[in-house]
């Protein structure tokens, strides 16, 4: 491990990669601050840039920096404007915004930055411990287990994404898998479902789909319903200091939430949003009576908890990506797509075949967190000026960048029409409360899922692998339970609510 650390440090500290981290964090903060643009959209927009760098470590470092920056930027707009740019920072606005209204915006930002730094760094430490262990287990996996594991991942994402409406999340996953079968598969070298259209031969572009699912609907939502939070803020942010007593109060919160957030982040489908809400709720419940009164009115603990948890969870979500090659969230799914485009296949072999990538990413997490703390924090008053860009200019530029991203990826104007078409469909799906992340994750995992399924079918000459390999069977049973349990529990709760007696 020490050797790996040194390799990682060496890679991450090269001038180019340091610039990547710093640049990524700045860009991420900058765009993440804009209300309505989440980390998924930002990373999707940055992918063409990352891919054209060519060096996978540098690209991944850049994207990871953007990811952190986006989360940090999101908390800045939550605190200053009560307009969270990212779902994961909604909980930060509960106490951050009241603090800003009391004139303590600078203090709130400092607490957010320190909490994020601690959450991210402790998360990265945990990642260093758990990822190698998990990937040595994963090396024992066979393609049948991989197939089963992906099914587990997809069903977990569906089960978590659609609270109370698992069917909707599942059908989105299936739709993603269906879209992944369009084009020429690696296994058969036969074009499938292209309807004779040449442009579909290579399948749908992943960047196009990512933009259409996230960036475009968000921009359209901004057009449809202008957020009116602007202009409440007078632009003066001062007094960034916190007192010793305050530091003492938030230290245990940060410690607890780093661990809790990390482990929630590791679970597929849970991610930063759930971690931050849960962190807020837990800290509120265990606080003393007087402190509980404070929550929601500008409690520093109430700000530190979600901030720590969401950063730790972001780090945690890298565990399944780096060790199993299975993304647990929409953002890591986009990262996976970028890695595959760069000819890197994340998974248990990554640590053996290309240790420099794995360790460089981990090292860059530390550096990224440090950059956010010492570079971004003093710059915040200036970066916050981006919030005063009038939307008349902002929205055309966002739309232009989505178009550019889709075009650069494929160099094909048909891709732009697909982008608009899918974007309209995605907006309609959002209106009807269909979750979109499962679709993209299904799309990205589709190819691998089918390949592993096909390989196991060929080895066992049929579907025998399902019952001949106990681990596969076990994983598939878990996947089934994940899907069935939420609807079963919802049903029981409803029956009970209606006064109908049930068995137990």
């Amino acid at each position, binding site marked *: 491990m020490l050797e790996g650390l040194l390799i990682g440090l060496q890679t991450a500290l090269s001038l180019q990669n340091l610039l990547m981290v710093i640049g990524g964090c700045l860009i991420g903060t900058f765009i993440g601050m804009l209300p309505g643009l989440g980390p998924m959209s930002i990373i999707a927009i940055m992918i*063409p*840039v990352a891919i054209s760098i060519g060096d996978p470590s540098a690209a991944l470092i850049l994207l990871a920096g953007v990811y952190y920056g986006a989360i940090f930027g999101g908390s800045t707009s939550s605190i200053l404007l009560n307009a969270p740019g990212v779902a994961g920072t909604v909980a930060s606005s509960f106490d951050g915004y009241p603090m800003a209204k009391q004139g303590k915006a600078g203090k709130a930002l400092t607490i957010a930055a320190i909490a994020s730094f601690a959450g991210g760094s402790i998360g990265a430490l945990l990642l260093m411990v758990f990822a190698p262990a998990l990937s040595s287990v994963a090396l024992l996996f066979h393609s049948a287990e991989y197939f089963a594991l992906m099914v587990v991942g997809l069903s977990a994402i569906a089960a978590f994404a659609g609270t109370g409406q698992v069917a909707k999340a599942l059908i989105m996953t299936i739709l993603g898998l269906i879209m992944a079968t369009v084009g020429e598969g690696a296994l058969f070298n036969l074009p499938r479902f292209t309807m004779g259209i040449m442009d579909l031969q290579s399948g749908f572009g992943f960047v196009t789909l990512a933009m259409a699912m996230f960036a475009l609907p968000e921009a359209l939502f901004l057009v449809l319903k202008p957020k009116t939070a602007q202009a409440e803020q007078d632009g003066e942010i001062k007094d960034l200091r916190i007192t010793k007593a305050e530091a003492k109060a938030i230290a245990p919160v940060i410690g607890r939430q780093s661990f809790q957030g990390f482990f929630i982040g590791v679970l597929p489908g849970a991610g930063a949003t759930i971690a931050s809400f849960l962190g807020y709720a837990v800290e509120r419940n265990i606080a003393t009576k007087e402190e509980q009164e404070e929550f929601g009115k500008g409690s520093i603990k109430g700000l530190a908890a979600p901030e720590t948890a969401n950063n730790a969870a972001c780090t945690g979500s890298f565990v399944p990506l780096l060790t199993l090659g299975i993304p647990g969230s929409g953002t890591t799914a986009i990262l996976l797509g970028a890695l595959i485009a760069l000819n890197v296949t994340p998974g248990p072999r990554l640590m053996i075949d290309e240790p420099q990538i794995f360790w460089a990413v981990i090292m860059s997490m530390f550096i990224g967190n440090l950059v956010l703390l010492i570079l971004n924090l003093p710059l915040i008053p200036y970066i916050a000026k981006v919030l005063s860009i009038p939307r008349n200019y902002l929205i055309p530029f966002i739309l232009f960048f989505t*178009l550019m991203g889709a075009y650069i990826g494929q160099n094909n104007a048909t891709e732009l029409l697909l982008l608009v078409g899918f974007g309209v469909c995605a907006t309609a799906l959002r209106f009807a*409360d269909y979750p979109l992340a499962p679709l993209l994750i299904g799309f990205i995992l589709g190819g691998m899922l089918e390949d592993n399924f096909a390989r196991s*079918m060929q080895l066992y000459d049929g579907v025998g692998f399902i019952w001949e390999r106990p681990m596969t069977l076990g994983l598939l049973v878990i996947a089934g339970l994940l899907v069935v349990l939420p609807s079963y529990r919802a049903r029981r709760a409803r029956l009970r609510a209606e006064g109908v007696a049930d068995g137990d």
Partner: protein
Amino acid sequence: MALDRWIALILVGICLAYGYAAWFTMDGGLAPFMKRNPIWPSTFPKVLSVIGLLLSLVILLGLEKSELKVAEIDYRRLGEYKLGQALMLLALMVAYALCLRPMGFIFSTGAFLILGSFILGERKWLVMVSVSLIATLIVWYLVQQVLGIYLRPLPGFIGG
């Protein structure tokens, strides 16, 4: 019928069409030696079409009860939002897609950015034109020179 069930109806259609293609049109052209394979190119799509059909029927028939949350934007009152602007911007994006190759990058992008802010209600022409042109040139320079991706800068008839 609520929007989510209309969408489920469309999804049923998609799954049926996809399933038809998978079950009835794909296996005919398969080479004889591939037919001895336990897995065919159509195997996985067949499975997907069946699961997809079942799931979309579950939503269509409302078998899974869920309280309807009002999303960030209530589609039933779509008229109250700035729908016109959104539709015009979408049309502008389509126009951009069609113009990018024949008209060249600089003209199309400049026009896109200017018209985009115009649709959103901006009327300061001087600011609009200068911001758009500067941004267009910067992006063109970055993409073409730094990233090395060819973008035709000028309309074809000028020889760009």
